[in-house]
């Protein structure tokens, strides 16, 4: 279990207990947190689960797989701290993670 905080673009904060093994994307979708579309269902094929990760967490996350940076090229306003939330698998180590959901996914 890890507490994940999702800051949505309407300035609301949602802190959710997400089970280990789920992705940060699934944690959002299953808890109806707005702003994560995840059109492809977690296949790293659509870039619609894009989030900005709080800087202090950037180095603690698993490194990006090859395809993730390619997909981020397609994301809406990608930045240095952009990640695809479908590629972040929740574990105890991610307890306290804060992600910010962009204004749009496309």
């Amino acid at each position, binding site marked *: 279990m890890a507490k994940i905080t999702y800051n949505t673009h309407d300035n609301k904060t949602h802190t959710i207990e997400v089970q280990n093994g789920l992705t940060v994307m699934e944690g959002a979708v299953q808890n109806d947190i707005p702003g994560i579309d995840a059109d492809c269902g977690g296949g790293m*094929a659509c870039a619609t689960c894009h989030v900005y990760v709080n800087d202090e967490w950037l180095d603690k996350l698993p490194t990006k797989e090859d395809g993730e*940076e*390619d997909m981020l090229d*397609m994301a809406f306003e990608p930045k240095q701290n952009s990640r695809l939330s479908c590629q972040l698998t929740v574990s105890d180590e991610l307890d306290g993670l804060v992600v910010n959901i962009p204004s749009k996914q*496309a």
Partner: protein
Amino acid sequence: MNKTDVLIIGAGPTGLFCAHQLGIIGLSCEIVDNLDKAGGQCIELYPDKPIYDIPAVPECTGEELTNNLLQQIKPFNVKFHLNERVEELKKVENRWHVKTSGKQEFDVASIVIAGGVGSFEPRKFPLKECEKFEGSSLFYSIKDKTVFKDKTITIFGGGDSALDWAIELSNTSKVNLIHRRDGFSGAESSVQKVKELEDQGKLNLYTKYQIDSVLGDKNINIVKIKHDEGEVKEFKTDYVLGFFGLIMQLGPILDWGLNINKKTVEVNTENFETNVDGIFAIGDICSYPGKLKLILSGFHEGALAARGCFKYAKPNEKLRFEFTTTSKAAQERLGVKK
């Protein structure tokens, strides 16, 4: 007006197999898809990636699956309307009239929406001001490259489309290629070619830059780009092109009076009809308790929806259940030679 029994929206695997099931029971259909080829997500998102969960097919790629389905429906001579998006829907007595973006019209007894996660549309620039130039000096796809001759073109993106067009247009135009990072997702050979062209002064490459703003009256004449570190550059340009791949959007289907929940259409599990009589939804786009977004589920849904269409197409006939192995009628429709 195209008159047929059923209009299938979406030429992905689910739509294609539904066409097969319609053909087997003797109904005609035509298929509309916004992409330029059949296959849907299988072709657009993962043509080369293997799929391991098609029953009785241990492994195949999206492209192979699509080709096999096209082969399977060949006997029915299904007519495809590609590069067309459905727009308007109207009920006319017991039939539905549908209009597409390309002004095609259909007169059908029922409709099967097999639209996946929506129709594929180009991803756009995040800037609001880009909209007013779209179609005149800003494009997300190229239909006629001759307009770019001897002009200055600023291309954004790092995938194959961006690289290929940068290379192609550098023959006849002044090209700036802008990408958000040093790495590219396009083919390595194209990346090398772009770097060669840059060395030869035939193309300007700016990496770690993204669009900042576009300026112009009727047409764009200046584009500004911003570096990761904040530095802004501006230059004159006649055209701006953005290649950021495709995104899926439900589009006009949203206005058809269907019960829509989280970008999916609610259906019953008896025949996958929606809340609107004569309109069915199958595959990733439909939702019901227990829905699994698997291709095999889409096949099942298509088989049942096809039978659900029968009463609308042939209200005075009764559909008999038959196996293709033994049914003479089905084998005749398949063109099986004995």
